Every structure is written in C-alpha cells, then in structure tokens.
C-alpha cells in the first residue's frame, strides 16, 4: 500500500485533476441535510459540520475545524449504481410485431448473426455519453454496501450490465470515519469504521494534513504529479489512534454471534406484533438503506394514436426501487402473502440479518444506522434485535 500525505488545501488539486474526466458525486448540504449529489469542486464539501442523529432525528450543526467530521446522511451511493428508476428498454408494438429498443449494451449481441428476415425484434444499442462517476467521501460502510450490491447484481444468475458498466468505470475516494454518527454500529459487524479495501484512494483527515492511501494504479499515476510527501510512521500511528477512538465512541452495537439462528427461531416472537403497532410501513428504512435492492418493473406508456405510420402503442419499461413494505409487494392472484405490517417488518429485518447470509454469504446490513435515523417513528433495528433474544 502506498501512503502519502498532502496539505489539506491541496486536496483540491486532485479534484481539479479528476473533474474533467469524471462526474464528481459527493456530500453537499441541501435543505439542512447532507445529501449525495454532483459537486462542482472541493469547496462544495460541507466543511466544519457535524450532525446529531437519533431515533428519527437528524440535525446539522457547525462547529468543527475538520472537512470530514460529518457522517452519513439519508442518501447512499446505491442511487448512482442502481438508480431509483431507470429505463430497461423502450418498445413499440404494432399488430404483429414488438420492437424493443434496448438501452442495455450486451443485449445487442444476440441478434448479430441472426437471420434478419426472421427478426421481429429490433434492438438498438444506446451508448451513454456522460462521464464516469467519481464517488467522493464514501465511508467504509458504503463501500461494504456496494460490495453487497455487487453480489446481487453481478455475481448472481445474471449480470446486470447497466450496474456493471457504472461500477467498473467509477472511481472511489473513500474517507475513514473518525467521528461516528450516533446511530452507527459498523464496528460490531466489521464493516468499518476503517476502509480496508475496495477503494481507489482512501483519505484520513489528520490534524494538519490528509493521509492518502492509494488502492489502485489509476490513482497512483496521478499522485506522482502532485506535491505529496511520504507518510511517516507518526502519521500512520495518528491514523490508527483516531480510528481506535472512533470505534470507542461508537454508541450502538449488534451481536452477530447468534445470527442467523436467532431470527430463525424468533419468527413467531410476539415482538413482531409490537413493532407492527409502531411501524407505519412507509418504507423509508428500505429507501435509505444502502443495501436494499428490491425493485419492480412496469411499462410507462405513450399513446401515439392510430395512423399507418405510427405504431399503435409505444412506451418504455422502467425498473424502479420498490420496498417489501409496499402493500402489493407479495400480492398474487387470490391473495397477498404478507398483508400484515407484522409480516412485512419481519420480512425486512429477517432478510437483512439472516436470509442474506444464506443468499449471498454475508449480512445484508452494514451498520450505517440510516434506517434508525430516517424511520419516522424511530424504530431501531439494534434494539429490536436485542428484544428478540428474550
């Protein structure tokens, strides 16, 4: 691992260098909340902010002398690799023909060698011209969450080519958390606070400088052009003690030693009913969670009239985030498999803390605490898990 340090102000050189080749996505204040959005440069980063997070509360406060003293807000980077809504394909339908215009690169290949006289479906490849993403300020939990999404979208039965192309082209500049949010519990599930891998560059904000750890050659080349110094042993010791401190200050934990069995044996626990009496089934927890991936596809129609030239029907098929809390999520003809909120909360938490392990080999929770902060009634996954033990 290459470790260098740079004067704090000089971090902007890295931004300036990358801003022509990448679309920079990072933290920015919007309506008193730190969101993730396209940022123009280094100075958009909310310098000197901390926040107080509680069950169902979030307040930004000024008063630190650090760049990165805030922790995670409601947004997660999943919105950029797996957008809230996106087109899967556009279609036109006439009487005897469905034409699909795919926005998916790989799908073009299947028709390459085919007999065009037999071809009823035409697939047009659309290349997106926008710049690749540079994700700035990703925390250890967010990087861990992205690796979980990789398991879903890249390592399953099919590869999501859209996700894949964004994922492969994006650069990740992570930031080690030194001040845990009040709802964070990454350290108890080993997803943070220190970023150990999965980054192109990881930043630690020391007292006087930024310590930069270089993960990939794409960033290494650039570092050679910048006014950097080698990091000393003292710098590394400073980082280690700051991170140890962060761990020590983390207020919440979950005990993973009994998972997934604890959930399996608690599926009929009376606590689920108690939670259901508070839960609004609003789905906020699933929207803010960086690993929740459930989605639905539906057709968005344009009625183009009936003329000889214009097809009868055209539109796009859209895939958008959905939530296991939605009323119709498990509905089939003749009924709904999970009509009660009790069952829907149980499904969500059981998925996060146990089913994931069987499905993808690790917990579906990275301990970011977002679901606790953004639950309007303050339901706290760590506390509910504790109760299930009793």
């Amino acid at each position: 691992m290459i470790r260098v340090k740079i004067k704090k102000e000089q971090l902007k050189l890295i931004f300036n260098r990358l801003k022509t080749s990448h679309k920079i996505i990072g933290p920015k204040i919007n309506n008193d909340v730190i969101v993730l959005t396209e940022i123009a440069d280094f100075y958009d980063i909310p310098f000197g902010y901390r926040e107080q997070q509680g069950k169902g509360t979030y307040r930004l406060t000024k008063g630190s002398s650090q760049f990165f003293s805030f922790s995670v807000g409601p947004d997660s980077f999943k919105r950029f690799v797996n957008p809230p809504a996106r087109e899967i394909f556009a279609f036109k339908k006439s009487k005897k023909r469905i034409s699909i215009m795919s926005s998916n690169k790989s799908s073009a290949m299947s028709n390459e060698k085919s007999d065009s006289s037999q071809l009823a479906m035409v697939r047009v490849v659309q290349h997106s011209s926008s710049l690749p993403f540079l994700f700035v300020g990703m925390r250890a939990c967010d990087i861990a969450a992205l690796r979980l999404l990789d398991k879903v979208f890249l390592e399953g039965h099919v590869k999501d080519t859209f996700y894949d192309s964004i994922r492969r082209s994006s650069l990740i500049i992570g930031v080690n958390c030194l001040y845990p949010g009040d709802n964070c519990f990454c350290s108890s599930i080993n997803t943070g606070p220190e970023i150990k891998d999965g980054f192109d560059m990881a930043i630690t904000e020391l007292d006087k400088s930024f310590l930069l750890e270089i993960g990939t050659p794409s960033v290494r080349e650039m570092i050679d052009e910048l006014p950097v110094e080698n990091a000393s042993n003292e710098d590394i010791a400073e980082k280690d003690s700051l991170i140890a401190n962060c761990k020590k200050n983390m207020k919440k934990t979950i005990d993973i030693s009994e998972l997934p069995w604890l959930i399996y044996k608690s599926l009929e626990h009376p606590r689920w009913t108690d939670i259901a009496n508070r839960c609004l089934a609003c789905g906020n927890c699933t929207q803010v969670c960086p690993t929740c991936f459930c989605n639905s596809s539906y057709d968005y129609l344009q009625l183009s009239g009936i003329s000889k030239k214009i097809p009868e029907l055209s539109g796009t098929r859209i895939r958008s985030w959905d939530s296991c809390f939605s009323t119709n999520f498990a509905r089939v003809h003749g009924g709904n498999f999970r009509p009660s909120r009790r069952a829907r909360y149980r499904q969500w938490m059981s998925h996060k803390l146990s089913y994931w392990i069987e499905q993808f080999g690790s917990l579906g929770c990275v301990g970011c605490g977002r679901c606790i902060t953004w639950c309007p009634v303050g339901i706290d996954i760590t506390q509910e898990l504790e109760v299930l033990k009793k």
Partner: protein
Amino acid sequence: MYDKTIPFDAAIRWIKKETRDTTTYAIKIINREIQRLYAFKPGQFNMLYLPGIGEAPISISSAPIDNEIMHTIRIAGDVTTHISRLNTGDVIGVRGPFGSSWPLEEIEDRDLMIIAGGVGIAPLRSVIRHLLVGKRRKKSSIQYQTGKKIILYGAKTPKDMIFRDEFPRYMDAFEVFLTVDKADPEEYWRGEVGLITGLLNKVSFNPLNTVVFMCGPEVMMQSMVRELMLRGVPGEKIFISMERNMNCGMGICGHCMFGPKFVCKDGPVFRFTDIEGFLGIKEI
C-alpha cells in the same frame, strides 16, 4: 447467451381451449439465434410479456422433446386476460427460461408419483410428456422408464379438469387417478369425488421407493405432504413447486422471497426438506 432481462418475440402457432378459463398456447420463438440457444427443463417457467400490460410467470407445459413450447394459462388478472384475447399469429414477448426443474435424476430406478391440483398440472405435464413422448420415440428419457408411475390429479369440477382428453394417452405409461371436489350433474364423471388426499387410499405404492413431484395450491400441498409422510415417504423424496409474486425471474427484485429462498431461481421446484421450516409459517 441472450440477455434474459430483455424479452424476445414469439408467435402463437395454435391455441387449444382446455376449460372455460384455461387455454394452452403453442408458441414459436421468432429469432433463429435465440431459438437455437433456448433450452429448458421440465418444471421451468417463462415470463410472458405483453407491452403496455405487463409480465406474468407461466410454466412451460410442453416437454423439451416436443417440437413446440407450450403454455397452459388460466385467466387470473390483467396479463392472462389479455393473453386470452390473442389469436394465432399474434406476437408476445418472452423472457426465460427461469428457475429450477423437476429432478429427473431422482427417479432413475425409483417409482414416481405426480400429484397436481388445478392449473398445477401445467408444469407437471412437461414431465409427463417427457416420459411419454420419450418412451414412444425411444429417446433418452427411456432410462427413467423402469419404475412404477402414478398420476394423482384433482380439480374443482369435471369441467375444470385440464388436459382431460389427454389422460387416456397418459395411461400408456402411468396409473392415473382423478378426483373432483364436486361432480357436475350434467357431466359424465367416473373418477372419484372428494379431496385429492383421499386418492392416496386408492393407490398402492411403496413409500420407501417413491419420489413425489407435486404442484398445486399451497394448502393442498401442505396436507398432501403430511399424508405422504404419515405413510412413510421420506421428506427428501418429495419435491414441490411453489408460487410467489414474481417480477424479475432471476433473483434481483426480491418479490418472490420465501424465507431465504428466491422462488424464481432457487425454485420454483424445491426439495421439501429444504424449505419445510418455512412452510407452515403464516405470511412468511
């Protein structure tokens, strides 16, 4: 391989009405390259797509050995209603095949009992035809021909019985036992009347040598499994096909989750013992 997130075109070759609400469609994949690459196993399903209306998961009711891909569809809602309005020559979108299949290797040297309720016979017809047509054509499925083979099928009334005209042919290779919940006074009916579980008393089978393939309403399957196990059939030898809401068909949308399983990719066919812990749990 072609992209299973994007539907391909298939044309309806012929249509056969089975009952008042259920119809069999034979479809042909139009793109030759996809036609060549498309291969399925009995028990798998396709997502059928009508632009502007939506998609529905539908089992393949023909066998791989058949010349056509067939779907047997009961009208349940939007997509299936619109399919019921299509004619020969019309084009539908198809994604697939998806899901697990009936484990044919399990029935080598063993007896097979097929148990179906209602439209649940559709995915099992694929196995039935695989064995039947295979036997007639002396194709590879011959290796599964040694054991005894039984079909138990239950429908609401004789009029709701799907493939009723085909059962005489099935008798070439299977012992067939049919039952209806209610016999219809106007219909000539010489099968049983009563729940499908009752049929178990009429069949003679060796529980320790029998493999069960079952598909039907969940409550039916639950009581059937109980009866079978009481008679000594090991849970490891019972395979059931499950139904859940489906949207993607390939494990990325979350709709079909059943405990830790994705019905679309880990199922729809499950070994009973792999899911038994979740079967009785309400609203899982």
